[in-house]
């Protein structure tokens, strides 16, 4: 796996032990959230489908750990991880997944559209690459309003096929907007490997605009965080946009119903990533080896997270649906 130069230069000991533990907790939260979302689907308690983030947790957490609450993110159809990592409450997220009034969008958005302006989340987006305009426009707005916020555009390798991304990257670099384009290369455009869909180098696409570009091991939250720290500092300091290519893997299917995947990828491949490249296990192994924490501490974190997630699911299951007259509310502001 490629490590970014910046990450290699980064002194991990400069990061507080508590902060690493917080990142672990955040990754645990995302995984537990997704496992429960899957269970809600399988038990037919959740309407529709959802796209699980399991396997990619280090990207969302490493990126968002380097952000402030008032920094913006835009997210994707596979967006629960970004939402949790930016600080959303699990109970209101589950409520949204179940179409309940207590949800972040009063049940009107669902899994693919959770937005939470209080944590700077401008919304998940069900159009692949569709949020590149919003994230870049947020960067434009930051510059015009003269604040030192940054705007993060999360997207997958599938979005590299969309023209909007290149139109907006061009303008972000031309006008030096504080936007960081985070490409999560989980290798698959739905059910098709990107070697069948993407010509040339992925990173070179951003480099063609002169955008500062980095590649990082997306299974290593330390590397993602360390690299993002630098990119965020650059953007805040007025040095313009950046592109961060995170090499990662989607442990499960394109969506919860994508169970039989042998026709597009092997079980051996999945097993390798799950056993050797799990971002949660990676962090535990490093922290344990470095003497930063005992195994029992991680078990305690996992237990606490499970309890919180269970409570959040119960909250959502017991929450009321929206009133029917809500259907015509909020079409216009």
């Amino acid at each position, binding site marked *: 796996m490629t490590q970014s130069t910046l990450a290699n230069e980064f002194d991990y000991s400069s990061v507080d032990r508590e902060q690493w533990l917080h990142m672990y907790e955040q990754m645990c939260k995302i995984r537990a959230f997704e496992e429960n979302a899957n269970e809600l689907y399988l038990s037919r308690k959740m309407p529709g489908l959802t796209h699980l983030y399991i396997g990619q947790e280090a990207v969302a957490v490493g990126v968002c750990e380097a952000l402030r609450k008032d920094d913006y993110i835009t997210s994707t159809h596979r967006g629960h991880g970004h939402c949790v990592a930016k600080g959303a409450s699990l109970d209101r997220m589950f409520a949204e997944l179940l179409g309940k009034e207590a949800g972040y*969008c*009063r049940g*009107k958005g669902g899994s693919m559209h959770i937005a939470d*302006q209080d944590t700077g989340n401008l919304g998940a987006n069900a159009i692949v690459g569709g949020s590149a305009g919003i994230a870049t426009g*947020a960067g434009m707005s*930051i510059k015009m309003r003269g604040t030192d916020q940054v705007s993060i555009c999360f997207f997958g390798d599938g979005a590299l096929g969309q023209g*909007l991304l290149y139109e907006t990257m061009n303008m972000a670099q*031309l006008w030096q907007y504080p936007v960081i384009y985070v490409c999560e290369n989980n290798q698959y455009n739905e059910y098709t490997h990107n070697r069948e869909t993407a010509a040339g180098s992925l990173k070179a696409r951003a480099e063609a605009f002169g955008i500062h570009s980095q590649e990082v091991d997306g299974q290593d939250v330390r590397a993602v965080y360390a690299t993002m720290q630098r990119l965020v500092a650059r953007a805040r300091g007025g040095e313009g946009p950046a592109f961060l290519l995170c090499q990662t893997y989607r442990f499960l299917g394109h969506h919860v119903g994508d169970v039989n995947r042998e026709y597009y990828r092997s079980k051996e491949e999945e097993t390798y990533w799950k056993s050797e490249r799990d971002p949660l296990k990676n962090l535990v192994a490093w922290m344990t080896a470095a003497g930063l924490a005992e195994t029992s501490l991680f078990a305690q974190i996992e237990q606490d997270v499970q309890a919180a997630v269970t409570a959040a699911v119960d909250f959502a299951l017991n929450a009321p649906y929206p009133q029917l007259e809500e259907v015509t509310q909020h079409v*216009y502001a």
Partner: protein
Amino acid sequence: MSTPEAPPNVRIITFAEAIREAIAEEMRRDKLVFVIGEDVAEAGTVFKVLVGLVEEFGPQRVIDSPISEAGITGLGVGAAITGMRPIVDIMFGDFITLTMDQMVNQAAKTHYMSGGKLKVPMVLRTTLGASRRSAAQHSQSLHAWFSHIPGLKVVIPSTPYDAKGLMKTAIRDDNPVAIFEDKMLYQTKGPVPEGEYTIPFGVADIKRSGSDITLVATSSMVQVALEAAEVLAGLGISAEVVDPRTMVPLDRQALVDSAKKTSRAIVIDEGYQGYGVTAELASVIADGAFYYLDAPVKRMGAMDVPVPFSPVLEDLTVPTAQGVVEMAKALCNKN
């Protein structure tokens, strides 16, 4: 078009000047308002509508963009969600095809999908209308497309007075608003008062009162309807010309009330007739005034063909005053 007499505090200015005044006044009033588009700054747009703005407000607020309609519309959506009030300039109405995902899936739905939390106070200004010998990709009137999408407001002014007042309202609105300006109207003149005024959305304007037949007309077709009404008056037919001014929200009551009064109606719009604005407006009248009607509600839209280049062909595709007169005569049994 005859130039109306102006009272002392009213100037006679062009449609283009009215648009420019509205934008300039709003930019002076609100620092959050800015313009982005292709050739909007030093060039002042290809139709010279925005000439002078960059000199007053600078290139940070009147921004020449790359030729990236989807991209600049997306930037507008993101800037609007995060506190700015962008005006996105799309040079020709035909190019809204390139903005569709950003307008339809992003701008229009953000407020609803977020449960009312996020707002998109953005204006997309663009053009409509044929008759400039510009052929099939620079001549369409596609306002029906945006009018079809819940969450968007659509403005379609026909006079300098309306253009200024509606543009100011659009800029102050907290929703995505598309404003379609007829290219052929830019140099037409009309009375516009000095000083501040706005025109509310969803309020139709009776451009001419009459009692025998209602001509509902939009944008470029208002002038066509007024010319037809003049001819019809000479034939003893009193035509009322109703201009909805905004497609969304639509002043349904004004259309129905006029049709009830006259008992006949023709809807005239420069969009393609098939599945278009005329169908929607005719349906509103047919539903609301059915028991008062003495004839079927008729529709006149652009011919359902790609707009041809050759002048002799292009002129066949757009409703004309003569065509309206003939249809009105037939409806009123005056043949």
